[in-house]
């Protein structure tokens, strides 16, 4: 057999199962997860809230499983990862980690059913923020911290942890990175992947630390500041009170709003902001449009609230900005909302749920960049309808977007809508009416979580009373939204498992 034939054979082969490497990566992640539980455990020890034994037990189990996978099953792994494998790697990591993350909820007896624990954990790691817990004031503090820690870990992407550590993965790390961050949407901060990831983590941790300090010195309790900071920067949205952020001071709300807006921005742009590269920031078309849409939507909400209330208050404007920032960054925070809730606000909010945040941020949704590319493509299309010989290209930030990439975005949007439709279908089977089913499915696939718009559409959005089937469906949607669909859909295709020729 000649070399070229051989190469071709190798290219079209079945996805291999480098189980050892998978076990190794999983094991490492579990160890990291267990060590991150130091934070909730120490909080619960400090407050002696009764959850310390459960949390310690969960941490030990996770650690034990992690070490077992890493040091026994994963021994002697070859650090080689092919394109096809990266999909099922990503999927399996994102399945196992949230499931293990459900242990603390079960061990502290906060929730009784496995479904609820898994729901809470998936909602955490995917930074959705839909919660089945009620009476948060009565829950152990350590567990509340764990909820936010899970969001913080999930916000940046589980795999980035591994990539940062595993220098030996070389090309494989880039593949995993792309599988988790949906390809070229994320600009690299540094040509070297490992360095890039470290920088991303630095920006992310810096933001979190800044918000934490602001909130803590703004007069909030340690746990409130910590949890809210982590939930905000990861655009997760878990809160520490049943009333949401209603008890926070104006200063704290201002800080949270600002940081929500920042978390919806591409990390690369944030990096430029922090290092003072203003020209690059201003040249980023997505960033500019993100801000414009945010401000215009907030203005629209302010106006309609003011009309509904009959007078204009600064508080109304502040609330509108908070609400729009919370929706666009897909945080899903809520606070005491005005008694009158005009239809315009609900309508704008619903559109923004689909739109989501900037590409390369921790937020969810369809992402600004994709919508921009699509809009420009459609505009070009209209021009070619009149002038069929015109050759037009789609440019974003001066880069020409290839046709095949546009096709991929079209497919992405189609699959996104298909998932929303299927999710809504399952919800209607569980007894929801059609508009609410659509809203809930959209809120979960865009990793928004709770949203006042849905309450306004008729029924109360209550994840507690969902049927187990519906909860599992919502988990699939959250995961699909977080992994940007392709990684999930690819592995269920027969073509993925079939060798060609």
């Amino acid at each position, binding site marked *: 057999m000649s070399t070229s034939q051989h190469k071709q054979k190798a*290219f*079209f082969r079945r996805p291999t199962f480098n189980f050892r490497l998978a076990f190794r990566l999983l094991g490492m992640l579990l160890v990291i997860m267990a060590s991150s539980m130091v934070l909730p455990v120490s909080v619960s020890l400090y407050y002696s809230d009764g959850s310390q034994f459960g949390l310690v037990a969960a941490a030990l189990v996770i650690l034990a499983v992690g070490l077992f996978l890493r040091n026994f099953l994963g021994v002697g792994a070859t650090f080689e990862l092919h*394109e*096809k494998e990266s999909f099922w790697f990503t999927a399996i990591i994102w399945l196992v980690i949230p499931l293990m993350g459900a242990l603390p909820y079960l061990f502290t007896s906060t929730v009784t059913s496995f479904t609820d624990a898994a729901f809470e954990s998936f909602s955490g790691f995917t930074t959705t923020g839909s919660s089945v817990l009620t009476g948060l004031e009565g829950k152990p503090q350590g567990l509340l911290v764990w909820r936010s820690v899970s969001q913080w870990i999930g916000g940046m992407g589980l795999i980035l942890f591994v990539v940062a550590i595993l220098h030996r993965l070389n090309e494989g790390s880039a593949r995993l990175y792309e599988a988790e961050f949906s390809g070229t949407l994320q600009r690299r901060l540094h040509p070297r992947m490992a360095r890039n990831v470290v920088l991303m983590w630095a920006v992310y941790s810096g933001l979190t630390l800044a918000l934490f300090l602001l909130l803590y010195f703004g007069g909030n309790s340690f746990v409130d500041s910590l949890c809210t900071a982590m939930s905000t920067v990861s655009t997760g949205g878990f809160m520490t009170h049943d009333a949401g952020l209603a008890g926070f001071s104006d200063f704290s709300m201002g800080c949270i709003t600002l940081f929500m807006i920042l978390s919806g921005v591409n990390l690369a742009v944030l990096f430029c902001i922090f290092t003072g590269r203003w020209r690059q920031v201003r040249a980023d078309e997505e960033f500019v449009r993100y801000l414009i849409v945010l401000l215009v939507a907030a203005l629209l909400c302010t106006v309609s609230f003011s009309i509904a209330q009959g007078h204009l208050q600064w508080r109304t404007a502040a609330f509108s900005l908070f609400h729009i920032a919370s929706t666009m960054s897909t945080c899903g925070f809520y606070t005491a909302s005005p008694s009158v809730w005009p*239809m*315009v606000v*609900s*309508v704008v909010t*619903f*559109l923004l749920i*689909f739109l989501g945040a900037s590409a390369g941020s921790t937020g969810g949704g369809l992402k600004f960049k994709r919508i921009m590319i*699509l809009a420009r*493509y*459609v505009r070009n*299309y*209209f*021009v070619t*309808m*009149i002038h*069929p010989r015109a050759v037009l290209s789609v440019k974003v930030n001066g880069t020409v977007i290839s*046709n*095949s990439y546009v*096709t*991929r975005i*079209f*497919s992405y*949007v*189609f*699959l996104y*809508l298909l998932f929303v*439709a299927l999710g*809504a*279908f399952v919800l*209607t*089977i569980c*007894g*929801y*009416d*059609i*508009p609410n*089913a*659509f809203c809930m499915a959209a809120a979960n696939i865009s990793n928004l979580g709770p949203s006042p718009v849905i309450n306004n*559409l*008729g029924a109360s959005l209550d994840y507690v009373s969902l049927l187990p089937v519906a909860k599992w469906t919502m988990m699939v949607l959250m995961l699909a939204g977080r992994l940007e669909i*392709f990684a999930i*859909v*690819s592995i269920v*295709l027969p*073509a*993925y498992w079939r060798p*060609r020729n």
Partner: protein
Amino acid sequence: MQRNTTVGMILRPLGVPLVGEGIAMLVCLWPALHFGDGSHWGILSAALLTIAVGVTLLWTLPRRSATAGATDRRLSYLTVTLVWIVMTLFGTLPFLLVGIERTDPAQGFAFSNVHFSISLADAIFESMSGLTSTGATAFADVEGLSPTLLLWRSATEWLGGFGIILLVLAVVPSLGLNKYSLYTAEASSADNTGKTSTSMRTMVQQTLATYVSLTLLFVVLLLLSGMTLWEAINLTFTNISTGGFSIYGDSIARFTPAQQYILAASMFVGGINFALLYNFFTLRWRRIGRKLDQFCFFLLLTLVATAFVVVALHRQGNLPFEDALRYGIVQTVSVITTTGSVVADTNLWWTPIVLLFLFLSLCGGMAGSTTGGLKVMRVLILLRSVRNTLTNRLHPHAYNPVRLNGRPVSNEIVTNVMVIFIVFVITMLVGVLLLMLCGVGATESLGAVFGCITSYGPGLGACGGFGSYAAFPAVAKWLCSALMLLGRLECLTVFILFLPGFWRNR
């Protein structure tokens, strides 16, 4: 190009459709005289006015030169949209003129003494709904309308259904818009290079022959099943055109099972590509060959959906199996062909069925049929293209085009399908939002947008089932009319008129 010739070239194509519409109005004199409902003057004046305008346009304006059509495609887009709008405007004449009343009958005819019993918004809505073969009605009490208007409603749907087939099969290719015609993807009379093998005149003749003979066939079938001639004509008109108006308030619920099955058959036939039908009935089977991808997918979709609905109705709705079977078959066919005839109050059905109906109506029937929605072919191309995108990520260097009937579909068509899909979705989202801003409830808005843009007709809630759009505010009715037009002309043709570049002379 001289401005007056341009105007002439835009307006002249309106002549023939207007004359046709006027003749259809003349036909509606039959019930006026037969039932003696006193509407003969109204319908006669509407008919004469329409014919007069049409004939004037044909006589006074210069003939379109042979080369002009291909050179400026802007004219073509404008013409296509204008035909539907002008037809709709003239289609309101019967509603307005028959519904005209004197506030004080003792006095003579004066403008201050006249009022229209049917508002302009209602008339436009009904006329648009008919000509786009949507079947959404603005009248709460259909049976209270005079028989003349009932036949006129049915006739507009029949005309509209015929119009859309002509547009897709004959007019669009002849205007040089081939590249964007979905029909070029279906290889029954055009090949993939876009050259039609059949001339426009032949195409029109074939379509007309098929449409008329199918209409006659179903009228006869319905007569044999025991309907009166009046019912048979009206219902055939509205069902073969996949429109869905009925002359009764309960749509087709009152008919016998056999009659409902015949109606379902007529809807299904209306959902099939007319070139395919022509080739099938004239025994030109070799031309069809194996180019049946779209038909098979359509059939499969209908069967699977019907099976789900029947089982769901039987299990969840506790209906006896015969009823569940009949309701399931008739209603699912009505939905997927975007007809909108209603066999039972679907508002009371299990919510997943109702949601499934929304999705099915968006799918629509085959391209080149009278149905609305995205068309099964586009859905098929979309699905295959998405599948290819996914497999292309696994095999980045593989040549893997979207295939239809075994042959690769050109990139232009795939792009066209994707753009139409996206524009449809955005239009629907914006439509729902605008309707909600008009004060329509969330459920009704959602249903109305699906009902109007897919030309299915009935929506959800008050406007679903046996309901009507009567309770909508006037603004919402205008909006729904616009949505019907957008859906029928597949959005792009209409939206392009709003592009600044469209009106700019280079």
